[in-house]
């Protein structure tokens, strides 16, 4: 089976999972307590006729399975539903909030991978030596610390005590600088000076975005850094003890090359899987980190939706997370199959 066929195979395989996901999220979201319409009309005096009219408008008066079918039909047409709380289509909300979450998750993974792999390799190479112990301690602390607490600590240190970085909010590089001028002026947006050097106006706000991203990235990325590092270390140790490494030594390959080529490449295989599986943890973590840093991303959107019992928004966002994860896993599987020649596409792992 070629890689293309394998991709198709994996996609077909995902169909029942996606179906199940939609059923479960639909049921969960619909069994949320409270009446969406009365919540929408919270402040006003409830007018039974208005309630009935609204219920009819949103199809809430129909049986559950019918509503599910309607929802799925809408979904097939690209309609994720309608947020009663925001009074906007769910899709619009998602499109608005998604980029920042992607930015956050991606930057934290970049941070995690970029630090974890070298640290893991160094630890494996100097097994049971001080550098190994040090990185193991870092990893242990990393997996034991709540990410949101790391966020709080970073805010206390870097924002409050040192005043180096912003404590909350986000600057979107795709917005116009004017959007921030009055809110965040004290942060130095628009200044042409960075560290004493005069620069042309930072177009697209990349510099400010980076400043805003640093703390959330560290907070969200630490756990993944620690997990990846542990796996990297153990898989590198295993790889370094393999017969083929011993054979390379016996043929006079230098230790450097053994490290970089023979042992390293094989040890990357489990990392790929871990990165894929960590995706849900990261998305879940984003909920907390966005809350801590007051970033308006998908995580906060879900929380707002739940708080306001906005069931269509809950449904839409949860479903969206699920789909992102399933696609992520498929991509992981395919790239795994691509980098490990031993994986036969015919096998269903």
């Amino acid at each position: 089976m070629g890689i293309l066929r394998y991709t198709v195979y994996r996609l077909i395989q995902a169909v029942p999972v996606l179906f199940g996901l939609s059923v479960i999220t639909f049921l969960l979201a619909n069994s949320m307590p409270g009446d969406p319409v009365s919540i929408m009309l919270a402040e006003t005096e409830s007018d039974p006729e208005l309630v009935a009219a609204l219920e009819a408008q949103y199809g809430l008066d129909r049986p559950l399975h019918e509503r599910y079918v309607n929802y799925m039909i809408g979904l097939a047409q690209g309609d994720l539903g309608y947020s009663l709380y925001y009074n906007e289509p769910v899709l619009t909300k998602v499109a608005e909030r998604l980029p920042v979450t992607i930015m956050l998750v991606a930057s934290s993974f970049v941070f995690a991978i970029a630090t974890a792999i070298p640290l893991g390799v160094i630890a494996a190479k100097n097994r049971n030596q001080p550098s190994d112990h040090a990185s193991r301690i870092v990893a242990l602390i990393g997996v034991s610390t709540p990410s949101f607490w790391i966020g709080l600590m970073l805010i206390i240190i870097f924002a409050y005590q040192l005043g180096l970085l912003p404590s909350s909010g986000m600057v979107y590089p795709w917005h116009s600088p004017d959007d921030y001028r009055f809110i965040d002026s004290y942060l130095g947006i628009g200044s042409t000076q960075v560290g004493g050097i005069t620069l042309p106006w930072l177009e697209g706000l990349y510099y400010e975005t980076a400043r805003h991203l640093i703390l959330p990235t560290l907070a969200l990325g630490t756990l993944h850094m620690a997990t990846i590092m542990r796996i990297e270390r153990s898989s590198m140790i295993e790889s370094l003890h393999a017969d083929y490494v011993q054979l390379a030594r016996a043929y006079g390959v230098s230790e450097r090359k053994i490290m970089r080529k023979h042992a390293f490449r094989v040890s990357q295989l489990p990392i790929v899987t871990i990165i894929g599986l960590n995706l849900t943890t990261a998305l879940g973590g984003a909920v907390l980190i966005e809350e801590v840093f007051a970033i308006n991303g998908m995580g906060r959107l879900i929380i707002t939706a739940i708080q306001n019992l906005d069931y269509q928004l809950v449904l839409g966002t949860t479903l969206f997370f699920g789909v992102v994860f399933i696609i992520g896993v498929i991509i992981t599987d395919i790239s795994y199959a691509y980098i490990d020649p031993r994986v036969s596409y015919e096998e269903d792992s």
Partner: protein
Amino acid sequence: MSDATTVGNDTGDIEAGETLMEIDHVSKYFSSGSGFLSGFFGSPDVKAVDDVSFEIKKGETIAVVGESGCGKSTLARTVLQLLRPTAGSVRYKGQDLTELSDKEIRPLRQNMQMIFQDPQSSLNPRMKIGQIVEEPMKAHGLYDSEGRTERAKVLLNKVGLDPSHYNRYPHEFSGGQRQRVNLARALSTDPDLIMCDEPVSALDVSIQAQVLNTMQELQDEFGVTYLFISHDLSVVRYIADRVAVMYLGQIAELANKEELFENPKHPYTEALLDAIPVPDPRATNARGTLEGDVPSPINPPSGCRFRTRCPKVIQPGALGKEPTDLPDEVQAARLQSYELEPAVWQDTLAFTRAVNRRSFVLDEGESDQTEISLPPEEVRTRLESLFFKNGWPEGEVERTINAAIDSLSNGEWEDAATLLSNTFEENSICAIEQPTYTVAPERGDIHVVNCHLHR
């Protein structure tokens, strides 16, 4: 013997030498795919065991020998109904086990026990060896608790272990000693048959002999039958009474031990015996090495399974032209005879296989032999020196070879290989009909040779 050492058999007892089990046209296919979508993507069957028949006689040691992947372990498990056969029947004292449900078979398992290759994983690490030996008795409700303990201790002593080690755990024993525990467990229900799956191949040579001797002593004492699975012909020659040689899911040859080792008839058996190194530097070991690898059991060769590697493939048409009641295509193959000298036929066959495997070079200056371009005459000269030292074949054969030479001279190895193989290999009786023959044995009472040379 005390009460605790004997167990009555519930089914009618039979005398030593009578048929204990009949394995009748048994096949076991596995599906090579898994998961609920494998159906869509097609998954061919692995023919692990394909149409195998033989008998097991009470009190004998019958060995099934073959290389890894030949299906010997699957066969053994199918005999014990640990795997249910895809086709065929297995009769124990006349009772067809394949018709019984798992539940109905369970009580019968008292009479059929099993020991394994890996002494490491064959004993539950969290049970004491006493418990391990008692477990089968417990499962069949034999004796009371004290009687079981007593019998376990007796058996531990019989297999050469100290009964006072009853309360020890498997990891406290060496590999050889664990195999002894396995033997004691297998013997605990006083079975008729013990299936031994490579019982000594994980052991060091010196320990191997200890265990083999113990097994023989126990057979003499308890009259138990062994179905002995092994890849080691030396061990088989030491312990077996009758031997079945398996190749790619089928029995190639079956005979009494002396007959098989001294008078092997099947080319595969001969090759096996030739290949095995003899621990004697003065032994003149004329070795006709087998070429190539065992083909995939998913798509085994037609006709005789061994014919892709057999040095004695029969040339098309060489089986004589007298009319028989054979199918038409077989007849056709018989009629289209090339009538080559045996030596020239051997050369042609060797040439065909060499082209298939691309194991020779035509142009020594070029490492990639698919990119050569040589005049056909040069190729012909080279082939003559490499393969056709006994003279050049004539007639239709020569025409085929010339066509192949034309392809080769352009680097089209693929085409040449297909042409040669279709002409010479696929038209042989060996490729068309599955051989099943019995010959008169010189020693012993049976000699099955599934090879067309012995039609």
